[in-house]
């Protein structure tokens, strides 16, 4: 066990090393490609190594250990202080390990993928800055800090999606991602304000942004009931508004539209940010603040259904996509929906576990896709085919990722998906969604694999295997994707003890691990759940089999199905017309308001009021000027007229006296 001070220091190093790298590259080493890459990659690898040390330390501390918190004052007003610092506990360390290890693989891979790019140093600076922002979310001690880094993650995402800024589609995609997230942040900001002041209203001037302070209140029955009595329906609203922020980052319906477009970024960016880590930030925040959600039941129900709906919606769209990165993007959406659904079903531990395993195999799949794209110079799976013989390393690793994602025993995805299906078992509708999504996932991944790696090559040129710097990270991720799930296995060999990773996660949110949910009990035993495992595995195998019949063996014709289900196919290809609806909102409604406001401004306020007063003054002046004619007799006439009036008035006044 490490000293608390050491732990905090290590966390600060993990956090600030990528920042220092980004700053140094921007200020000093832009011209030296080698040095820039070394700084950037080195900082993330350092973070990964230190995270593993911290993770080992957390294991030695045991489940339910007190977090180490260190913070300093960021801004101070009388009666109100804002802090920034690090909170080191099992969840944050698990997350930083995922970011560090997956990040290291992707950074190394990028060395090969970005080879020869003119913006090399700029890319690595931004990449390192992203790692900093993401780790900032990870180690946040309070809502304000998580919001700050939340926004920084948003901006690094914007910069990296729009990395090929001369491409109009990339520039638009970056903007879309940023704006969609801003709408999520709108809710989150209000949620934070609502919660902050509600707690202050009841408990006085305490640090009611701090996670630990709030956790203390929410896990104390008396304090919590006092707070909820004062807040009423606003408690659930506050939790839901905070979840709206998570909906933006984790791309939940209806704020999911930015994620598929975000694939305009370079593939390593898609892998790290839009698959493995950044999009998981929303789920992470829910887990981090689970004491809040666990007691805000109404919000939790909404979370569960939004997650389930997103999972289903995205999986159905993924089936008809032809761009390999888009398939993976919709798959990511769907899996994020899975995690969110698990959180909503009181399975935050399952959600967090799936977050971790998903990060590995989805990063692997994206990097594999990048390797394929690199070789074929196309994103379209119908331009590929038969790559299995030409790109051996890419093929086996991609298949490993696919099977892990489909949830085939004993790969990583199997264990975490099993947990999710287990927690959803008591909510029948969502359980059916979960099982259905498992089937669809296996199908669309099988479709991609059979089309890309088997059959005959349909593209141009001669694809060949990517360089070693690219496929070694693939192999590392593949190994973790295959064996990583065992941390959730009930075994005495498990480094996390007999009850697996789960025991650490559950304890971290709720002391007793039990929360009541309107639809049933949320308590789930860690380990293997044979009944749901059987169903899940059968579904996955069925999906793969069907894909094989369509795209491998070719005994079924996808064309015929397409013709038969024409309207459905059109609906799916057009992504349920959600994007078109938003475009209409932005182009017509929002811009309509803007033009109306501008009309009011230019025509009424400036045109009529301001210039009207000016014109009136000028007009009056022009008329008055005529009286100053310069002719003595007219002046004399006016003076005489005035005197006459005065005399008359005076006389009448006197008479009336």
């Amino acid at each position, binding site marked *: 066990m490490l000293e608390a001070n050491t732990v905090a220091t290590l966390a600060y190093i993990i956090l600030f090393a990528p920042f220092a790298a980004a700053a140094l590259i921007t200020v000093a080493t832009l011209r030296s490609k080698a040095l820039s890459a070394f700084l950037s990659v080195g900082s993330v690898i350092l973070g990964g190594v230190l995270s593993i040390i911290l993770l080992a330390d957390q294991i030695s501390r045991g489940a339910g250990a007190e977090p180490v918190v260190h913070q300093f*004052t*960021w*801004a*101070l*007003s*009388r*009666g*109100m202080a804002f802090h920034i610092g690090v909170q080191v506990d099992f969840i944050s360390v698990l997350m930083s390990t995922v970011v560090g290890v997956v990040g290291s693989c992707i950074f190394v891979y990028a060395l090969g993928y970005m080879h020869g790019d003119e913006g090399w140093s700029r890319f690595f600076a931004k990449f390192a800055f992203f790692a900093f922002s993401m780790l900032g979310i990870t180690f946040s001690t309070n809502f*304000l800090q998580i*919001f*700050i*880094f939340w*926004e*920084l993650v948003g*901006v690094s995402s*914007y910069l990296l999606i*729009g990395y090929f*800024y*001369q*491409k*109009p589609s990339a*520039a*638009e995609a970056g*903007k879309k991602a*940023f*704006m969609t997230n*801003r*709408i999520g942040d*709108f809710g989150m*900001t*209000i949620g934070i*304000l*609502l919660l*902050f*002041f509600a707690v*202050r*209203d009841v408990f006085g001037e305490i640090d009611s942004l701090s996670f630990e302070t709030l956790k203390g209140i929410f896990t104390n029955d008396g304090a919590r009931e006092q707070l909820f009595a004062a807040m009423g329906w606003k408690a659930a609203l506050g939790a839901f508004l905070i979840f709206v922020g998570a909906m933006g980052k984790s791309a939940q319906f209806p704020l999911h539209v930015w994620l598929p477009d975000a694939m305009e970024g370079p593939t390593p960016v898609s892998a790290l940010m839009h698959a493995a880590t950044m999009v998981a930030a929303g789920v992470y925040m829910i887990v981090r603040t689970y004491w809040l959600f666990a007691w805000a039941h109404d919000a939790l129900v909404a979370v569960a259904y939004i997650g389930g709906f997103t999972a289903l919606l995205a999986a159905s769209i993924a089936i008809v996509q032809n761009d390999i990165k888009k398939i993976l993007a919709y798959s990511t959406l769907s899996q994020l929906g899975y995690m969110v659904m698990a959180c909503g079903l009181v399975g935050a531990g399952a959600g967090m576990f799936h977050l971790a395993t998903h990060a590995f195999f989805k990063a692997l799949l994206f990097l594999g896709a990048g390797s394929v794209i690199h070789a074929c110079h196309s994103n379209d799976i119908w331009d590929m085919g038969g790559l299995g013989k030409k790109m051996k390393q890419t093929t086996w690793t991609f298949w490993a990722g696919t099977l892990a994602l489909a949830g085939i025993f004993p790969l990583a995805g199997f264990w975490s998906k099993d947990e999710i299906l287990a927690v959803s078992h008591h909510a029948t509708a969502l359980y059916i969604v979960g099982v259905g999504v498992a089937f669809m996932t296996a199908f669309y991944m099988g479709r991609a694999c059979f089309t890309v790696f088997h059959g005959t090559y349909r593209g141009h040129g001669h694809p060949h295997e990517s360089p070693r710097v690219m496929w070694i990270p693939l192999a590392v991720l593949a190994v973790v994707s295959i064996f990583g799930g065992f941390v959730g296995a009930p075994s005495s060999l498990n480094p996390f003890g007999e009850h697996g990773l789960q025991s650490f996660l559950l304890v971290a949110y709720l002391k007793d691990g039990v929360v009541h949910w309107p639809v049933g009990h949320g308590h789930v035993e860690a380990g293997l759940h044979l009944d749901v495992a059987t169903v899940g595995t059968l579904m996955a195998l069925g999906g793969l089999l069907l894909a094989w019949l369509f795209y491998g063996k070719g005994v079924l014709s996808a064309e015929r199905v397409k013709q038969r289900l024409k309207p459905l196919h059109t609906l799916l290809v057009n992504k349920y017309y959600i994007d078109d609806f938003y475009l209409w909102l932005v182009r017509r409604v*929002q*811009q309509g*308001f*803007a*033009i*109306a*406001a*501008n009309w009011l*401004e230019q025509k009424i*306020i*400036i045109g009529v*009021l*301001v210039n009207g007063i*000016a014109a009136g003054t000028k007009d009056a002046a022009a008329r008055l000027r005529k009286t100053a004619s310069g002719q003595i007799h007219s002046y004399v006439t006016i003076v005489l007229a005035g005197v006459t009036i005065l005399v008359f008035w005076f006389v009448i006044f006197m008479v009336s006296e």
Partner: protein
Amino acid sequence: MQPTTLIILAPALTVLALFFLPANRPWLIRWFAVAGAFATVVLSVTMWLNYDKAAGGWQFAEYVPWVEDLGIAWNVGADGISIAMLLLTSFVIFAGALVSFRIQDRVKEFYILLLALVTGVFGVFANRDIFFFYFSYELAVIPMYLLIGVWGSTNKEYATMKLTLYLTAGAVVALVGLLLMYFGARDFYLQNPSMLAGFLSEHPEFAGSKAWSFNLVQVIWAAQHGAFSETFQFWVFPLILVGFAAIAPMWPLHTWSPGGHAAAPSAASMLHAGVLMKLGSYGIIRIGLTCLPEGAVQILPWVAALSMMNIIYGGMVAMAQRDLKFIIGYSSSSHMGYVLLGVASMNVIGLNGAVFLMFAHGIMTALAFSLIGWFYDQTHTRELQDLGGLIKQIPFVGTAFAIMAFASAGLPGFANFASELMVLFGSWQATLPVQVGAVTIPGNPWFYLYAILAVWGIVITATYLLRAVRWAFFGPLNPAWAGRVKDADGFLWKLPFVFLIVALVAFGCYPKMLVDVIGTGVEPIVDALTKARATLLAGR
């Protein structure tokens, strides 16, 4: 001599020196002006670092009686709010003087006017004498007329006339209020000689003061001891408010500002949006809130409502603009809405946020106008559809512009985020009741709506700024500019932009170092407001 006096003298003496420099040596003139501007940076930073936060109040004070029959004195000093504004002004004038190196036409006259203007601005922010406060305010407005009229572009005659009329008219309205306060305080001290003695024993540095005095400290003391009746305050506060709000600019008195920005040359736009607007909000806080709290607390809720027009309506209008300077111009009036909202929230965090935002917005908007000026001088267009892909051609200026847009859109790491966040917290806090002794001041539930709309305003801001960045800088490069637009190359040209960005980032990453100072100035004002609210409630 105190740094407050020096900071007013530095630009004034530079102006004087420039008169005697030969007009055919432009570089000599430029460097001289920059040296004068840099001196103010040194002075303001010195004051900020040496300000005693524990003691608070007026520091670096100096008092030399001048026209004793009227009670006019050279009476300067700085509190926490002034310090922030002095820092802002010196940063902007330093960057502005550097940016203006590109001016080729009548260099000498340009710098004389620029520094005369800034003398006036320093004169307002460092003054404790109402007469000089007003005098300096006018001194700041008049050179702007000439700067736009002579060196401007885009409909400049109309714009400069409108600007000057608005600001002068506003000043006259404020002057009526100021004179009423002057006479009100005089009558108070004449009728209660013991009060004058009381004031002098508390403030021995003003020994020899008569009952009639333009000394702000003396007028505030009178206000604190009941010189101004509630009715008086209720009628005089609107005069101060409207007079200064015209320059702030509060809706619907804002229409002079976007056109003025668009017409002005770079450095004038920088000072205009960066600093002149803050004279308005500073005046409202310094004179209105401090001297007339019982009037202020009754009117400010309406100001909060009007600030929504600034934020939402201003943002919507900005969204419909195609000219970059008009976008930033309307964005400025939108951002100033947050300042007004912070002021109207009447609590420490809200006012801290408002003052901090005045600082942050000033720097940010100065950066915006200096960058737009950089490529406008070469492209002669600011229409979004005529630009396009410029970052390829001018990567430094383009990157700096994107940074500006992020700052303006309220991204963490920049002072704008920290300050707008504080305003939001302040606004929400205004919905909570305040307990003063036995009196409970009820919260104002309207502020829920204001806070929510203000958060939405940040979304609107991001919409039009990202769109501007997207169309002006990203996408394919417009072939008309390929090889024709020069980037800021070399230390000298980059310096003003880097300087402003560093200021935004430094105070954005660690806001405490400025907010602590601002807080010492804000707290007594909020206490006075709270007391006034309690008094009014108890009286009813």
